[in-house]
């Protein structure tokens, strides 16, 4: 997956860290102090959408070939997360109990074109 630079053109992963203190959520989230949310951004131009490493799946590559050959041109390709990672969190709930939960799909690891 490409990492975004300052100027975004092609589909890439933008690193984005959320610090709970900055959003005043540190009083109820005990750990971690923040997390790398990350997100996907950028275009999926026709000539790149089916490329290895950029296409989100084999299915996306096939569809890209259809588009290049003028079939099913109405479909558009979009830059989306292709791999995500869970995150362990410890927090206070509304009853002031402490909860430890493994939350799935919290961190975007890589992006690709649909």
């Amino acid at each position, binding site marked *: 997956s490409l990492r975004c630079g300052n*100027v*975004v*053109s092609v*589909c890439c992963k933008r690193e*984005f860290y*959320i610090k709970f203190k900055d*959003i005043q*959520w540190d*009083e*109820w989230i*005990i*750990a*971690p*102090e923040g997390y790398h*949310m990350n*997100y*996907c*951004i*950028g*275009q*999926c131009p026709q000539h790149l959408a089916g490329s290895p490493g950029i296409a989100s799946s084999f299915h996306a590559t096939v569809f890209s070939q259809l588009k290049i050959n003028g079939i099913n041109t109405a479909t*558009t*390709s*979009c*830059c*989306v997360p292709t791999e995500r990672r*869970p*995150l*362990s*969190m*410890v*927090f*206070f*709930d*509304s*009853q*002031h*109990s*402490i*909860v*430890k*939960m*493994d*939350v*799935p799909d*919290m961190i975007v690891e890589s992006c690709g074109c649909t």
Partner: protein
Amino acid sequence: GSPSPGCASCGLPSMERDAEERLMTEIAKQQILEKLHLKERPNITHTVPRAALLTALRKLHSGRVRQDGTLELQNEIPTRDPGYEIVSFADISKMDSGEGASLNFQFQQERGQSIQVLESSLWIYARSSEDPRRDSRLFARVFLSAVGEVSGSNRTLVIEKMLEVQDSNWHTFPITRTLQSFLDGGQRRLQLEVSCDEDGKNLCSFDDTANSAHQPFLVAKVRLRDDRSKHVLRKR
């Protein structure tokens, strides 16, 4: 097909970096609340004593407590198991007889949400016997009492256990079935009474004072029951 760097099919318009990050932060906040099964961010009106919190977290082995008191979660790969752990600290009310204490735990279940208790235990700190000539063992009993009842009346024995009290230490009492029955009954306040006295002197520490590291707590490993899969099976 849009000339802007945003992906038009995702509906994300091209915007300044700051605005984009503000939007992402708001989306992240919504996502976190939803994933933690919370309607809104909890309003923390009173804090658990820091010492008690650190003790509970150490007991849970949830992570390493750094020297500055912050928690570093273990560098393990979190599971995709939808289960989670709850640590609930007791609100303590001393019994009139002075033999023990009544421990109150608050639980709130969303309507229609069904929780399966995988494992649960009550953690109590027992001080060592002051008289070295005394037997170092002590009988401790945990009762389930009806909410609103006078302490010592209308209560059911949940578990009794012999404690070794030569040294002050933490002791656990398994209460998985008790907690499951309580949650299945749709109640909110679990009231337990603990009796661990020696010659009328209570050796269990029930200090409700701030900064008490020995505040009793309840640990539960639970998971949400997936009623949808049951429904599909029934249909089949």
